[in-house]
């Protein structure tokens, strides 16, 4: 008896060792490709490294102190916030409208939903270029169409809020299908009985929506907001292609500002410090997502 128990314990030990062995290559790869660069980013953020001047090996908090009084950084945070807030609102509104509308479409017209999904498949650089062409007054069919009625469409990309609007439109075009898919999945999970029961109890449609449908949709809406906000921390291709951060600095979101400081102003250390700030924000959010996930899976 004792022998078999020991043998089994040995086997379990071997098994767990086997699992560890299977993880080893991935752990090494993550350390090499991710942890080492991250450590490098933190080290750079505390350094004085400049792409052209090099470094005097002075380490300290100066980059972070500088961030506190950097008006351009502050501006970039506002831009990032504007892009993500307006983007999330537009994507949730359009996504839910299409999701609800598509629910009512049955039969052979259902294939039409592909038209609403297609924008999600287009790579972001292509999205940015397509919308750049649509926002170029001399080229755009939208401008030409309104010209027929004597209406001149303004050149959005040359004004501050116009440029933000243009990027939000492009971002919304490619990402509303994401919101739509999530809301469609959530709507399918809501039993029609609930809404019917509310109707029988004399609730108006608006009240049914507010008290029954909306609370059940809340997790989905929360998730869309979360994912879109995380993506807004990485906003890059659309800004780079459509506005280059301009006019002036009006579309220079934080991620783009870090790029400008690092690769255009050669100020690597300061760029890394901004990247550290973005990284810590992402760390905070992902911690909560991981907690949420743990509660669900265990």
């Amino acid at each position, binding site marked *: 008896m004792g022998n078999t128990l020991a043998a089994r314990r040995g086997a379990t030990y071997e098994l767990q060792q*086997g*699992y560890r062995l*299977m*993880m080893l*290559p*991935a752990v090494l790869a*993550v350390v090499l*490709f*991710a942890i080492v*660069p*991250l450590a*490098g*980013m933190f080290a*750079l953020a505390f350094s004085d*490294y400049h792409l052209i001047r090099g470094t005097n090996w002075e380490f300290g908090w100066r980059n972070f102190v500088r961030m506190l009084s950097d008006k351009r950084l502050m501006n970039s945070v506002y831009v990032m916030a504007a892009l993500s807030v307006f983007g999330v609102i537009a994507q949730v509104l*359009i996504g839910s409208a299409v999701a609800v*509308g598509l629910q009512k479409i049955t039969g052979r017209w259902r294939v039409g939903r592909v*038209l*609403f*999904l*297609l*924008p999600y*498949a*287009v*790579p972001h*650089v292509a999205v940015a*270029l*397509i919308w750049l*062409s*649509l926002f170029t007054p*001399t080229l755009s*069919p939208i401008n030409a169409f309104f010209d027929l009625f004597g209406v001149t469409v303004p050149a959005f990309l040359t004004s501050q809020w116009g440029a933000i609007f243009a990027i939000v439109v492009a971002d919304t075009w490619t990402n*509303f299908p994401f919101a739509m898919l*999530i809301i469609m*999945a*959530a709507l399918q*999970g809501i039993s029609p009985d609930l809404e019917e029961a509310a109707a029988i109890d004399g609730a108006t449609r608006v009240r049914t929506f507010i008290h029954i449908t909306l609370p059940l949709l809340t997790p989905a809406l929360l998730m869309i907001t979360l*994912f879109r906000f*995380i993506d807004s*921390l*990485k906003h*890059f*291709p659309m800004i780079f*292609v459509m506005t280059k951060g301009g006019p002036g600095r009006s579309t220079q979101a934080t*991620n783009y500002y870090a790029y400008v400081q*690092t*690769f255009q102003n050669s100020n*690597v250390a300061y*760029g890394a410090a901004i*990247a550290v700030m*973005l*990284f810590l924000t*992402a*760390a905070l*959010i*992902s*911690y909560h*997502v*991981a907690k949420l996930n743990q509660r*669900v899976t265990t």
Partner: protein
Amino acid sequence: MIDNSDAYRQKRRFGMAVMILLLVFAALPTVWVLILSLRQPFAIFEPIWESPLALTLENFFKITRSDFPRALLNSFATAGLSTAFAMLVGVPAGFALAKARLAGKFMASWVLLLLRMAPPVGFVIPLFLAYVNAGLIDTYTGLVFAYMTLTLPLVVWSMWNSFAQVPDELIEAAIMDDASLAQAFFLVALPAARPGAVAAAILAFLVAWNDFFYALIITRSDTATAPVAVMNFISYDSVDWASIAVASIALTLPILPLMAIANRYIVQSLSGAVKG
């Protein structure tokens, strides 16, 4: 409950109008890019209704004579290779994370999520400096390595979820029957998690294919991927809109079948993360 009151009909009509408007918003850019790609050079700046027949396939032939086809091949090669490596390393790791008795699983899930959410600018700065010193700028090796930061966390995370859905009893039974862990993995767990593995590979390929930022920083003319090479059609004094339209189509077409397969899974995996 059929309601034929005027108010109801009016509401329906309003709903239809909104849907049509949204359809125009969703479809107009796609239609527009198709038109743009087919326009004859002299007609590019004319509205389509003024010269609807000034169309040509020449733009498609013209682009084959540029650097762009090579950039497409670069995209295929680097996205494909980094996906293959990530699968090779990440699938066993996902299996182990799902089935082993380990401390620190929460830590692992946090790190994986964080790596997917962290802005790439943080990885790119140290990578760029290291690559300049190691001579890896504008090399396939450098780009594939960099893409591993995108593909590997994604593969490990989604395979962890996929293997978690394979019942533990299945693996235990195989081990009771004297199968080695490797046999249990290859003969029992992997076949059961195959749809998840296909989806993980597709998603990994898509993030690498769609990348613009890494390629912008660490490639030059030799290994430029398609998203970066498109920018060559924009110069200081002119923009080659027809080529840009053709290139946008070429960037999207190859991944449409992949999106069609993966799209169901994207929702499942995302909504699964919150709904459970």
